[in-house]
C-alpha cells in the first residue's frame, strides 16, 4: 500500500536515480520522471488514488480561484535583493498544490534554496498529478499561487532569484 505521503520520497528517489526516464506502477499509482524538464508536458507525472486523502485539499472556492487567476497573469514584480529572477510557470491548467498531501509541509517556502529539477509543486488535472520543477538553481523569492487554487497554463507560480 502506497500512501500519498510516500509520493514525494518516490519522486525524489527517481529524480536522483540518474535515469533519463523512470516509471513506477503500483496498482492505481503511476509515477513517471523525465529529465527533460524544459518541455512543459514532459515533466514528471504521478497519479495518486485521490478520494479521501486528497479531499481535504479540494476547495470549492471560485473566488479564490478567480483571485489567483487574475493575480497570476501580470508579470510579477522584481523581488528585492537584485540579481536575475526567473518564473516557474504552470506546465498545464489545473489545481495547484504546494504540498504533496494535505497537512504536509510545502515543497518550498520563500527563502528556500532550490536546485534545477527539484519539485516545487504539483498541478493536478483530472486526477493526473504533474510535478512542477525548478528549471534553475536559486532562492525562492516569491510564491504567487495559493494551495488548492485553479491555475492557468503558463501562469507564473513561483519566482526564483537565480544563483
Amino acid at each position, binding site marked *: 500500500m502506497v500512501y500519498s505521503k510516500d509520493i514525494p520520497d518516490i519522486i525524489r528517489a527517481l529524480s536522483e536515480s540518474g535515469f533519463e526516464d523512470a516509471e513506477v506502477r503500483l496498482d492505481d499509482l503511476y509515477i513517471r520522471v523525465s529529465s527533460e524538464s524544459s518541455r512543459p508536458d514532459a515533466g514528471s507525472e504521478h497519479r495518486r488514488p485521490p478520494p479521501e486523502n486528497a479531499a481535504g485539499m479540494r476547495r470549492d472556492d471560485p473566488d479564490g480561484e*478567480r483571485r489567483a487567476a487574475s493575480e497570476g497573469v501580470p508579470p510579477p514584480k522584481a523581488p528585492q535583493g537584485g540579481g536575475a529572477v526567473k518564473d516557474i510557470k504552470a506546465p498545464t*491548467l489545473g489545481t495547484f498544490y504546494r504540498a504533496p498531501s494535505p497537512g504536509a509541509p510545502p515543497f518550498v517556502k520563500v527563502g528556500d534554496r532550490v536546485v534545477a529539477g527539484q519539485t516545487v509543486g504539483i498541478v493536478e*488535472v*483530472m486526477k493526473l498529478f504533474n510535478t512542477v520543477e525548478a528549471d534553475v538553481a536559486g532562492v525562492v523569492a516569491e510564491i504567487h499561487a495559493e494551495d488548492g487554487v*485553479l491555475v*492557468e*497554463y503558463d501562469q507564473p507560480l513561483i519566482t526564483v532569484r537565480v544563483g
Partner: protein
Amino acid sequence: MTAVPIRRVFVANRGEIAVRIVRACKEMGIGTVVGVSAADRDSMAARLADRALCVGPNSAAGSYLRGDILLHACRASDCDALHPGYGFLSERAAFARDCESAGIRFIGPAPDSIEVMGDKSNARTIAAEAGVPVVPGCDLLSDVAHARRIGETIGYPLLLKARAGGGGRGMRIVESAREIESAYQQASTEAKSAFGDGALYAERYVRRGRHIEVQVLGDGLGKVLHLFERDCTTQRRHQKLIEEAPSPALWPEVRRRMLDAALDLARRVSYRGAGTVEFLFDAETEEFFFLEMNTRIQVEHPVTEMLTGIDLVQQQILVAASGRLDLEQEDIARRGHVIECRINAEDPDKGFLPSPGRITTWKPPQGENIRVDTHCRAGDIVVPFYDSLLAKLIVRGDTRADAIDRLRRCLDEFEVGGIKTTIPFHQAAVAHPAFGRGTITTRWIEEFGLTPAA
C-alpha cells in the same frame, strides 16, 4: 431529463463560433467561461466572455483537443454545461460521455447518437432502416458478371472503385453495359498494380451532384423538427465556400421528400439538439441520397437563422437545459433567400494558400439584411495554428437575385488589409453566370478552374 436551468456555460472552442456561443448565452442571462490557448488569450471571445482561462499552448493538440484539461477548467470555474462548438471535440462521443459523468451537461446530442452517426457504415445502415435513400451500390464485386448484374439493377452510369483506392486510380466511370467488361478489367488491373489489390466496388455515379443538407432540431424524446435545407454545392476539395437557402435546385415536391427523410432519420435515433442531415442530390434524376449526419452546430448555421429567424445556438441551450423543444413545426417559416460566403485567410491566386499575418484594416460591410459573424478586429494577428476562417458574410434578399445583388455590394465593400482573403474568389464566383443560374455542381470550381482572373 429534469429541467435544471443552466447558469454558466463553458465554451470549449475558439474563433467566431466561440464568440457566437458567448453572445447567445449573454442574451439568455447565462454566464460564460471560455477556454483559450496561449495564442488566443486576447481573442474576441476571451474579451466578451465573463472569464477566460488559458488551457494550454498554441497547438490545438495541447489546448482545444485536451478534453481532460477543458473539463477540469469547466468544473473548476463552476460551469454546469459545456458547448463544444464545431470541430475539435464536438463529435467525440467519449468526450460527451466524460462531460456527463462529471455532471456537466454537454450541449449537443446524446453520446450514443454521436457515436452511431460517426461511423459511416453504421449511419448508412440506420438511414436505410429509416427508409432514407442511400447511394445505390454493392459490397465487393466478385467478377465481371457480378458487375454486369449490379449495372442492370442500379442503372448506368456506374462508378467502379478500388477497395484499396485513392487519387482516382482503380476508378472508372461506366456509361453503359457495353463498356462494363473493359472498364472492369482496366480498373482491376490498375488497382492491382497500384495497391496490390484488384478488388472493386460498384456504386451509382452521380454526374451532376449537389450537396444539400437539412437542419433538424430534436428534444431527445422523439419530437423532431426541420428548419428547411441549405445548399452547399459551392465547394473546393470538399470544403464548403458558399451556402444558401432555399436550394435553387429543388422543386417543392422533392424538397418535401428530402425534409421528410431527414425527419425520419432524426426520429429514428430520437435526436437531441441541433443536427444536420447531408444529402447528395442528383440534378439529372432529381434523386437524393443520404451522405452523413453531423451531430453538432454547423459553420453555416446562420443561413438557417436568417432564413427562419430562429436562433439555433439558443435552441441548443434550451433543449440541454429543459429537455424540451418548445417550438412547433408550424412556427417555422422561411422568409426570402439567404446566401453565406466564408471569408478565409487564404490567397485564391495561389491555390488558396493560407495567409496568416496581422490584419491592418478590417471594415465589414453594413446595412439592412446583412450579418457578419467574425472574431476579427483590426490589429489582430491571424495565427497559423488553426483553421483559416475569418468571417462569415450572410445576406438576405426577397429573392435569390436580390440576395446576389446585395452580396456583390457587400463583397465590394468588405475591406481587409494586411492579409490575403477569399473575398476576390467570392466576387468572381457570385458574378459567374452559372452561379446566377443555380446550375452548378460540387465539381464546379475544380472543373472551371474558377479564379478571380477568370
